[in-house]
């Protein structure tokens, strides 16, 4: 039992990250109908930028915030420069466009930062804490804390703000929303920027744990997508839950089987869900956005 608990402890941090990326997928998909293949790359940008900024001597908080801003900007640029001009094109074209963005961003990252992983120290130094017999690193606690904060912020945003409600409206019925003078192009901009910002936050809290490397966009993006799909792609909170589930499943696989298969777990889960239950595992728990 304690072994299992340890797996949970190890996996829940990664899982929260997957969930945060998944949130971005859900938001963009519901507001625009697009699956943004570059979602994981915003995480990558946040992570790498944080490292660079810290190396310039900037104190932690501004460095991290600035890194998040950079990620958010990337999302904004994606929407303005690529998605918006292609708005009238077919779904196929839009998919490939986001793939193109992802590839281009990855290549740029490679040019700027090179192949070597970039490291960042944990936010608070110190040994792991022991909760219920399982060792939980302090950074993992940061991850969980930040994730909780974001979840609350999202709840507040979608429940309490005009823009948030407008985005929900867009998600439920784009045509009706347009009739209410909600501009889909603007909603799309918000969606991309928000999704990228959240991914940036994920990158920033993640980098002390796994380091940052130029090609982390794809694996994290895929796992984020898996998290979103587990949640049925309907709700950001479903994505968060899906991410946690996935993180734990992964940790269990690594622990009981082998680490080589760990990567395969997410892909296999994704494949299985898409095949068996495209509406997601948590569709029953159809959590509304707020």
């Amino acid at each position, binding site marked *: 039992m304690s072994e299992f608990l340890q797996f949970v402890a190890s996996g829940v941090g990664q899982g929260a990250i997957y969930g945060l990326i998944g949130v971005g997928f859900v938001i963009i*998909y519901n507001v625009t109908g*697009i*699956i943004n293949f570059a979602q994981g790359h915003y995480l990558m940008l946040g992570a790498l930028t944080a490292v660079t900024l810290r190396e310039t001597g900037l104190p932690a908080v501004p460095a991290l915030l600035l890194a998040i801003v950079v990620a958010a900007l990337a999302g904004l640029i994606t929407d303005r420069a*690529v998605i918006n*001009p*292609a708005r009238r*094109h*077919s*779904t*196929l*074209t839009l*998919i*490939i*466009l986001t*793939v*193109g*963005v*992802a*590839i*281009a*961003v*990855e*290549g*740029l990252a*490679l*040019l700027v930062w*090179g*192949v070597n992983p970039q490291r960042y120290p944990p936010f608070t130094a110190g040994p792991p804490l022991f909760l219920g017999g399982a060792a939980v690193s302090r950074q993992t606690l940061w991850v969980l804390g930040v994730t909780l904060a974001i979840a609350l912020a999202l709840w507040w945003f979608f429940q309490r703000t005009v823009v948030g409600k407008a985005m929900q409206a867009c998600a439920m019925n784009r045509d009706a929303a347009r009739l209410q003078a909600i501009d889909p192009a603007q909603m799309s901009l918000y969606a991309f920027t928000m999704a990228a910002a959240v991914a940036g936050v994920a990158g920033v809290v993640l980098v002390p744990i796994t380091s940052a490397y*130029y090609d982390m966009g*794809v694996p994290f993006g*895929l796992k984020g*997508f898996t998290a979103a*799909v587990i949640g049925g792609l309907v709700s950001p909170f479903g994505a968060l839950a899906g991410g946690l589930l996935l993180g734990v499943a992964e940790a269990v696989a690594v622990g009981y089987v082998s680490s*080589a*298969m760990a*990567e*395969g777990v997410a*892909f*296999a889960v*994704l*494949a299985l869900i*898409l*095949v068996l239950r*495209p509406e997601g595992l948590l569709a029953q728990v159809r959590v509304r956005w707020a």
Partner: protein
Amino acid sequence: MGLRRWGPLAVWAGAFGVGVLLMPIADALPFLTRANLVVFALHGIAAMGLTLVMGFAGQVSLGHAAFYGVGAYTTALLTAKVDWHPLLAMAAGAVIAAVLAALLGRIVFRLRGHFLAMATLAFGLVFYVVMRSWDSLTGGNQGTGGIPDFTLGPLRFDSDTSMYLLAWAVLLLGLIAARNLLSSRPGRALVAMGSSEVAAASVGIDVARTKMAVFALGAVYASVAGSLYAHYVTYVSPESFGLLPSLRFLVISTVGGIDSVWGAPLGSAVVVLLTEGTRELVPRFVSGATGSYEIVAYGLALVLVLLFLPRGLAGGAALLVRRAAEWAGTRRQPAPTAALEEVELR
């Protein structure tokens, strides 16, 4: 009558000649080698399969390199370990790829749009991970080697030049097959299905079955190319069949133009030029740059083409030809410019 009979033959002989001509051109360019030509031809073949799937059946596949891998690994294992004749091994690979594709298609084609794309991506990656982990069969990360040269009777293809000419010939055969297909009953069914599934079904086309069939056909193209690749490099490892190769095929198909079978070789040429070009140029501007940074070029090419030239280069070329024909007055009336509709994803 005589000339008409020999017409097509002359055209294809000419096309082969074009391939031959590419060799001195490659030699002349400092950053290109004949090895690049081999890659150009092989990727052209594989991407042609993807073009059939994406362009004519409107289905996205982000895991196409998996079938490339099936061909390569089948050839590797059957020729190196069991001493099969290369052609037989290639055929075996093609059959396995077709069967896998049919099975996968069956499962995955119920999905729509992005989900289909994601599913193909996921399956491609699962394949990659499996190939990497199945040490006993595939040699795992290390891969498997000792693959003999491709032979056809007395002919032995053991140099860049001979492999290139072989690959180019196979590419032309692939083009012929594709054109034969498209100007026939099943080909029209394909195009119809890519346009409007419901209307296609209304004339009796079994959409599900047809999707499976074209997916299998696309897989066969990739597998054949993969088999040739195995003979060429004599050693295969999972790296050549992961996500990046799949994306590369995607870029080739899209940049070349998914509406035309000529798009794949065209796109492949462009991608090779981009790849080698960036490899040549980037180190001059960014010191110490290492790694596969040609992916920047891929990404930019993809985005730019889609935004400004949605039908790809082949489409753009076709448009130019049509405009030129109009201008030269070879048409009795101004040619009706068909509505530039994208191939809709169903």
